[in-house]
């Protein structure tokens, strides 16, 4: 029932409120003496170099799409896991076929070097 999800809603409200209050209060009450060094983006103590907006390698695309495909696969496991006991052997077989087909895809990607960063 939707009411079971009330804690999540409360959590969302608290998070938004906390972030808003913290940012507003600190900007209202804190002293402000900007210098060039203070306005630099903080990069773990290293001096920043170059623009953050440069084009990243197309190789990430392969990784991203493969991630999505296997992520979509996972969503089918969720109802299956809930019903696992009731589906009995039949459920195991049908999920086995599903996984086998994707496993072939996995083997294919592996053998083609899809996971290599060359």
């Amino acid at each position, binding site marked *: 029932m939707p009411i079971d999800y009330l804690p999540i809603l409360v959590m969302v409200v608290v998070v938004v409120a906390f972030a808003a209050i913290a940012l507003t209060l600190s900007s209202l009450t804190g002293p402000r003496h900007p210098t060039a060094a203070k306005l630099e983006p903080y990069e773990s103590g290293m001096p920043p170099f170059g623009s953050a907006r440069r084009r990243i390698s197309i190789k990430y695309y392969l990784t991203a799409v493969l991630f999505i495909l296997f992520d979509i696969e996972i969503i089918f496991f969720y109802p299956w896991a809930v019903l696992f006991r*009731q589906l009995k052997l039949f459920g195991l077989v049908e999920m086995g076929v599903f996984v086998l087909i994707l496993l072939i895809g996995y*083997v294919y990607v592996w*053998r083609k070097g899809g996971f290599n960063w060359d």
Partner: protein
Amino acid sequence: MPILVPDINLRIIAPALIVTVTAIVVLLGELVTPAERKRWLGYLSIAGLVVAAFAAFSLWGANASGFSGMVVADNFGLFLTLTIALSAALSILLSIPFIHAHEIDQGEYYVLLLASVAGMIVMATATDLIVIFLGLELLSLPLYILAAFQREDTRSLEAGIKYFLLGAFSSAFFLYGIALVFGATGTTNLAKIAASLAQSAGSPMLSIGVGLLMVGFAFKVALVPFHWWTPDVYDGAPTTVTAFMSVAVKAAAFGAFFRTFQFALPALALDWRAVAAVLAVLTMTLGNVAALLQSNVKRMLAYSSIAHAGYILIALVAMSANGLSSALFYLLAYTVTNLGAFGAVIALSDGARERLEIKDFAGAAREHPLVALALTICLLSLAGFPPFAGFVGKFLIFGAAVETGWAWLAVIGVLNSLVSVYFYLRPVVQMYMSEPAEGWSGIRVAPLVALALLIAVISVIALGVFPAPAIALAAGGLIR
């Protein structure tokens, strides 16, 4: 709620299953096959298609449905299955030398083509909108990739991305249509939709849903005004892929189109028949007129395929048993004819260098008399000349339209056929009347291409001279 094991009847989906298993075997084979033996993967694919065709034959007349009414093995679906398998086998025959010459001979080519075939068979035999949608996606997704398969060619990439974007767009329309039809009737099963509509009157929501379904189908079979992607995609994609998708997609998508509208939505026929008639007129006319203006053979055949979709739509407007069987026959005739035409174009190419401009065909008859003859026969069949397959197909469709009181539509179809004669004859005139252009000598036609061409031309003539057996098979194809 107790969970019951559903009725799993693998025999009903045997053709699609065999094609899928073949695709997976070819995929694994690609991993272990050395580069110089990739053609064997093509032969393996053809073998799988032949077995699938036999499976479809063995199901003839079975008229059984399975998987909780999701798919059916009726003669309508099986006829389309055979047509699709034939088109795929001929396309692979053309492809084996073609992709070798273009240095794209990878096993994935056959895997994607077979996966697309599996999707087409699913779509043609599906009796549930969800399965039709999945079949549509499974046939489209590999074709987007195949269209972009020549990765070094920017035009091929452009074809892939254009096809993908517009295809995804049309899928969204289709899905929205399914949702609204589901909302109005409470089911996605075609038989249950028909039963639900027989009891209750339609609603605006249902009408919009049906309209959106029609837009989705219209995109896939390239009806005007949803045809904009066709010339660019057909032009940019590798020629063998163009050959395959110009025929097989039409067979599958028209199969589901007929099944959905004629079988599940007869209650709304008054509305959608009028819309389909308008679309048919627009599609035929614009397809043929635009084809007149093309100087590139691939673009000409692209517009010609749009025009042919218009002719087939007339059979849907007729909405009769004869309309259905005429559409099946037409799809078969169009498949062999168009593959023959593309096969001849591929046969005239010189290795990786293709001759795609009509003026390039000058003098071909002197250098390659047999290929020129084959191209002439196929183009005459496309134009609808007797005694070729295209003539019989048009005769049957226009006959079905006249029978059901749509004579004016048949008249427009005949007029359009007359217009089309002009552009179909232009390459023929070039081949026979002009002096040979340079560079014809020393071109050998690959044996596999010659074989595919021979099969196609014999089929074109056989279907034109002895159409009775094929018509009888098509006539048994009532939708269940």
